[in-house]
């Protein structure tokens, strides 16, 4: 666990960057610090590995004040990923990844063997090992950056806007892999972003900062969307927070109508949806495990105004319209 | 350190061979060579930079110029053409051309091409693009080439005394010939000061002619 204990950072002549921050980042979870620029999120992040020292207050890792530790040794057990990856241009991909293990005194051979495994882990083939960073795309560089941070198997990862320098499609892919990796590894992660969507998507806990280094609210993404503490948080999470909070509910409780109520739906011989009589293309289908947000989206884009629920075998089980979803949400609010 | 020659007021009158006269003749050589050399090299460098034709020449001129031994060039010219100002001036001019040519070329080539595109985009004619956009933006690089040419010429003009010309080199060469170290020292000090001051003057001139938008100062 990482603990901020009444931390203040004042820059000489530059005002307050972090204002009496107390915050706990749970072990094995991803905590995302998010807020507008100048809100002190990056400053706070960089106090964890002592790239910045607090003016007052303490930062603790598992109860140990980081101020009491040797800087270099502390940093070697905290993985660090930054925007644009910050890869060493003069080293091959493999040697970039092997950096920290080598600093920790492992043999070059051992470090390189481990590095090769890590590359695979972040979705890069062994072909990339001998290349230099300049030969990689932005997304590939970012993957190498993550592999490099993971190389010494640090219990803690500090990530400063790790995905903001790549285009949206690549970012989407990196997000998926990040979630998959984190599910396997269970690191204690502190991440900074200015993108609230990214924070909600990746964070187990999200801490929203406001200008002047004040913590506005901390909670799970769902808490932030459903019960914003004040106007600022409500505004920051966005006007469409109601719609977005639907991402946290599955369609399991959503009642469906029998397929017979959708005469325009085409089924193949096996009973699987094949399309709509009125328009081309596949029918929008979902399973009980998909989110309500996805189902809502499908009903909007479907030519018949309906989405089709399918079972594990792919057979159509029922249909819903956006009216059905609206009714479901009203009933849910009433029962709460 | 014997400064008697330098401090003797008799050497500071305006008679032939006095320090002020030697400074003047030194500056005269430098100025002539810079004018002629720049008049030749600047248009060529700008043209190559603007059109991109002959880049190979422009890139390598700087290196080749640096590797030319100045004393050899000077003595070759005098041996071929005889004593006098003209052969020395040719040698000095040859030294001015490479750095000015290369920096004029580099100044234009390293410009942000988007700015040049924008200049064309707002309807400037090629001549206007060159004089209103490319040249002003290339000035910092161009001036640094001009300054290194100046240093080169000031130094080589000192050597010109070895082939019978005036200039501050006289104090060094004559002093050495008659073992008058006080005179040698005076020459060394005056020519060093002259070089430093001249470079300073051009540095200030650069500050004055280069748009503040192109220097670090503007970002503060």
């Amino acid at each position, binding site marked *: 666990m990482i603990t901020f204990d009444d931390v203040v950072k004042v820059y000489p002549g530059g005002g307050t960057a972090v204002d009496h921050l107390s915050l706990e980042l749970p072990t094995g979870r991803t905590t995302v610090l998010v807020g507008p620029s100048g809100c002190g999120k990056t400053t706070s992040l960089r106090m964890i590995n002592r*790239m910045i020292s607090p003016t007052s207050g303490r930062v603790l890792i598992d109860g140990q004040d980081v101020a009491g530790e040797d800087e270099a*040794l502390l940093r070697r057990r905290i993985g660090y990923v930054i925007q644009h990856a*910050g890869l060493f241009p003069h080293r091959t991909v493999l040697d970039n990844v092997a950096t920290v293990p080598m600093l920790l005194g492992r043999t070059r051979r051992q470090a390189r063997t481990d590095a090769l495994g890590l590359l695979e882990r972040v979705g890069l083939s062994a072909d990339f090992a001998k290349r230099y960073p300049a030969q990689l795309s932005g997304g590939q560089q970012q993957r190498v950056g993550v592999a490099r941070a993971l190389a010494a198997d640090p219990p803690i990862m500090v990530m400063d806007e790790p995905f903001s320098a790549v285009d949206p499609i690549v970012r989407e892919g990196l997000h998926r892999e990040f979630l998959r990796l984190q599910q396997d590894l269970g690191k204690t992660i502190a991440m900074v972003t200015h993108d609230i969507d990214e924070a909600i998507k990746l964070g187990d806990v999200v801490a929203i900062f406001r200008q002047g280094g004040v913590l506005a609210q901390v909670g799970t993404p769902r808490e932030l969307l459903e019960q914003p503490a004040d106007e600022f948080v409500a505004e920051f999470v966005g006007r469409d927070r109601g719609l977005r909070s639907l991402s946290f509910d599955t369609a399991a409780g959503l009642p469906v109508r029998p397929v017979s109520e959708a005469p325009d739906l085409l089924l193949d011989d096996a009973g699987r949806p094949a399309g709509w009589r009125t328009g081309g293309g596949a029918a929008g289908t979902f399973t009980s495990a998909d989110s309500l947000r996805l189902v809502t989206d499908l009903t909007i884009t479907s030519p018949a105004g309906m989405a089709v629920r399918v079972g594990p075998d792919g057979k159509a089980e029922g249909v819903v319209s956006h009216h059905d979803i609206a009714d479901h949400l009203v009933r849910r609010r009433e029962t709460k | 350190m014997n400064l008697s020659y330098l401090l003797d007021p008799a050497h500071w009158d305006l008679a032939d061979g006095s320090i002020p006269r030697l400074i003047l003749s030194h500056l005269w050589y430098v100025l002539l060579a810079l004018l002629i050399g720049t008049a030749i090299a600047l248009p060529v460098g700008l043209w190559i930079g603007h059109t991109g034709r002959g880049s190979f020449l422009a890139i390598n001129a700087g290196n080749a110029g640096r590797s030319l031994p100045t004393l*050899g060039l000077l003595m070759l010219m005098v041996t071929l053409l005889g004593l006098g100002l003209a052969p020395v001036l040719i040698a000095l001019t040859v030294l001015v051309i490479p750095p000015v040519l290369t920096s004029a070329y580099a100044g234009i080539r390293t410009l942000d091409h988007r700015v040049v595109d924008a200049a064309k985009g707002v309807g400037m004619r090629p001549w206007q693009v060159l004089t209103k956009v490319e040249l002003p933006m290339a000035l910092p690089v161009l001036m640094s080439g001009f300054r290194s040419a100046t240093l080169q010429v000031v130094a080589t003009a*000192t*050597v010109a005394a*070895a082939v019978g010309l005036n200039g501050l*080199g006289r104090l060094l060469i004559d002093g050495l010939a008659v073992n008058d170290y006080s005179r040698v020292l005076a020459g060394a000090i005056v020519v*060093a000061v002259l070089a430093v001051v001249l470079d300073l003057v051009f540095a200030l001139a650069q500050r004055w002619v280069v748009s503040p938008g192109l220097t670090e100062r503007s970002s503060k």
Partner: protein
Amino acid sequence: MITYLSNNGDAVLAALRQHIALALIPVLIGFVLALPIGYLGVRFPWLYHPLVNTCGMLYSIPSLALFVFLPVLLGTKILSPLNIVVALTIYTVALLARTVADGLKSVDPLVVQSATAMGYRRLRRLTDVELPVALPVILAGLRVATVANISLVSVGALIGVGGLGQLFTRGFQLFYVEPILVGIILSVLLAAAADLVIVLLGRLVTPWTRFQGAAS
């Protein structure tokens, strides 16, 4: 020219040997001195501008002036080769100290930052990350310094020690073009060869630069 060379082969060779020594020893000494000096200009930012200005001033002193001034300062004999070596070392340091400082400053701050965050201590970060990344810039400066030194050595002939420069003074005194041409050609060839060696060595020690600017 061929006849001149065949009649004076030994003398030309001796002059060439002296030229190489007088030009390259200062490059080596100057390079070693410039590294820590340039580093100081980056480590202590307030030192950078004084350093650059001092280097610029030293570099602008004409070589002949420095050659004849040094004996006064060092107490050496005016004919001592040491004067040439010290003078050229000063030029080399003046040129390279600035290049080293600029090279180190040109290292992407993100790279330095990530090295720090990965647990590099200052000295090792300098030797393992910052210097190697700055190497292409430093080597470019080394090329300039080497070529400049090779051409400057000949001026020393005016005070009696000048490698190939002696061919110039000899030819000039006899009003005889051959030795001057031989001297110029050898001097230029030597500069080109030294330049080429540095370029090739540079490629060998900075293999990554070949790919820069290639991919996005």
